[in-house]
Every structure is written in structure tokens, then in C-alpha cells.
């Protein structure tokens, strides 16, 4: 899966327009990345990548790229 495809998955999850995200963006600056969307992220990572995120890992994410690193 390409970087762009992974970004597109996150954009769909956050209901953002295509191309709205890039890997360097700080998550704190993305208004849509809130407590509810973090639950969606747990589900997406588990279903699509078999990655079981926990709260500490999510709290450690600083940029969009940090999430992408686990989308393998």
C-alpha cells in the first residue's frame, strides 16, 4: 500500500477531503482528530492491518506519519 493510499484511509476516517493530510502534519493541529475518531482509528488499524493499538501508543502519536509507520 502506498503512502498516498494510507493517507486516503485516514482522510476517509476523519471525513476530510482527499489530499487534506500529509505525513508531517501535527495531529494536535487536526481538529477532526478527536477522542471519538481515535476509537475509529483503533478499529481501522485492527481490521485493516491487524495492529492492536492501545491508549498509550495512540497518545504517543505526534504526527500523521507516526500513524502511517504502523500501517504495515
Amino acid at each position: 500500500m502506498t503512502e498516498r493510499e494510507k493517507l486516503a484511509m485516514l482522510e476517509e476516517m476523519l471525513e476530510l477531503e482527499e489530499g487534506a493530510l500529509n505525513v508531517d502534519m501535527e495531529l494536535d493541529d487536526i481538529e477532526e482528530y478527536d477522542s471519538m475518531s481515535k476509537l475509529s482509528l483503533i478499529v481501522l488499524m485492527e481490521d485493516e492491518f491487524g495492529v492492536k493499538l492501545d491508549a498509550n501508543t495512540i497518545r504517543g502519536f505526534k504526527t500523521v506519519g507516526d500513524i502511517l509507520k504502523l500501517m504495515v
Partner: protein
Amino acid sequence: MGKFVNTGIRIEAIATVVPNNYYGHEKNVQMFGEETVDKFEKITNIFATYKVSKHQTVSDLGYVAAVEIINKLKLNKHDIGVLVFASPAPDYIQPPTACVLQYRLGLPNDCAALDITHGCSSFPYGSQVVYSMMASSDCRYGLLIVGDSNSKNVNQKDNSYMLCSDAASAILFIRDSDAVNKTMLKTDGSRYKDIIIPGRGMRDLNPIDSEVVCSDGVSRSKYNWYMNGMNVFVFATRDVPKAVKEYLEWTDTDFEKYDAIAFHQANGIIIDRLVKTLKLKEEKVPNVIHDYGNTGGNSLLLALCEKYGNIELNKTIEVLGVAFGVGLSLGVTSFSINIDNIFPIIKTDNQFDDGIIELEDL
């Protein structure tokens, strides 16, 4: 450990009551704005809740539910020897709410009445206490009241206000020499902070009622309910399925045995995950989260009352009940019940005005 086998006692009837005070989409939009509400509804599948009024309590709702059972089954109140009120929402710090209910319901002084302060897992915990107390006594009936009024604790600026709904159920236990129940209870107290009201207990009785912005960006005072949504989600979607599988193995049963698999109605995304993880047939899983929100400890019973309450079939069904929440704690239990004794949900304004104490009256 944590596994209980109860013989000679079974659940006979369930009644559920919610307050009249209805909070729907429009009210939420007024409070939180369209965008926030739309997103909340999409993830939680909660579109409506019911909230108690200022002086209305869980015991008022539980009272109405208990009266419904007593009247419909024409019980002799003097045969009720155990009354357990399992709820984190007592009327007072003292006395136990069960004592007030014993008086209001007109139960005999021979009735043992006590409170259990569990929350969302209060049904299996409360059931186990009733089973155990009845097993070592000769009383004919036991009554369990479970419920919550979390809307009183949640800060009204917290999105969780749209999640929290108030309700109570009454559950009647009777003697039956053929009955066997198996209940499994678990606790992980290391996660006690994941759902907590920090103030008003003896640890911090009278904290300043000022609000602070917490790490999730929500303003709260110490009197407000806090939930670490991510941690609880992980608990509900990973620990709970494991526990259900452990219960099935212990009881040597599978999902085919059960007509209804009733989960605590936490929110839509959690129920969906449980259905998916455990590979359940959706039609076997009562899901009323859309219309009632998260009512806490009685929610799986409310779901049964909504699904079966208006059906008269004289048919006995097997129910697997799974509850989880504050503690953190969880419980899995099962029971058989005649559908005709699962009563329709009642809405009420009932309120025990004598219970509002003025110091001059003491």
C-alpha cells in the same frame, strides 16, 4: 476464582423503567452543535437518551419497576426476603437506598436490604449476591434493583452527556429446585481511574467545584464523571470477548444454546465490535442503543425488555448476559426466562417527595 454455580434459584421476571424526560437529536444539537452531534451519532449510534429530573433518582425508577413485578405477578410482599439495590447512584450517602426502598415497597422488616455500588456490571454482581443470600436462607423471593442516573454526574459540556441515559430494572428471583445458574465475575482494579468521579467520596469529600480542562480537552470539576474512552474501548473490545469465550468454555456451551446474547449497551461501536469479534448473528444481539443510549448497569435488561416486552408468546428463552464497566469490572451470566415475564418498558415521573430532606424536618 470468580466463578459461581448457583442451584435452586432462578430469575422469574424483569421490568424496566426510564424517566419521561427525553433528550433527542434536536436537544443535543442545541447543546453541542450540528457537526459534533452528527459525528457523535455516527460513531456511537446513540440518537436519544432519557434523563431523570432534578430530584428524581434511580430508586424512583426501580420502585416503579418493582411495583410492576409485584402487581403483575400478584406477589405476597411478605415472601420477599432479600432486596439488593445495585447502583452507583444512591439516594443518600447514608442510609442504604435499599432500606428506603424496603419501606416504600412495603416489604417486611424480615427482609434483608443492602446496596452494592457497582456500575455497568451491577447486574451480574447484584445477581450473584441475591443468589448467594437466597441460597443460605428460606425466603421465597429475592428482588434486585439495578440502574444508573449518570446524567446527573456528567458535565453538560462533555460529549458524554449525549451518551448517558438513566434507567432502572427490577429483577425477581424465585426458588426452583431444577434451576442451575453459572455466573463469572472479574475485576481489574488497576484500571480504577478509567471511569471515575474523583470528588464527593470520603477521599475528597468537598473539593472546590471549579472546572479544569482535562487531557481530553473537556472541562470538568471533581464532581463530574470521567471516562478514559480509549482505555475503556480497549477493555470492552478485547478483555470482554476473552471473558465471554472463557465463560462458554467453563459452562461447556456455545452461542447456539442462547436465544439472546445481551451485552451492556455501552455504545454502538462497542456492540458492533463485540458482534464482529465473537462472530455473532446480529439478530441474536438485542441492540437498543439508538433509542435509549447507555443506561449503565441495567442496559442489557432494558434491551431485553425493549425486544421482548411487547411479545406474548409463553415461550422460555435462554439469555447470555454480558456486562462490563467501572472498576474496571465485568460479569458474564446466563438465565432462562419466559418471554411473558419480560415486561414492556415503562416511562415515569415518579419521585419520592418525602425523600427530599429539609434540615428543619429532622
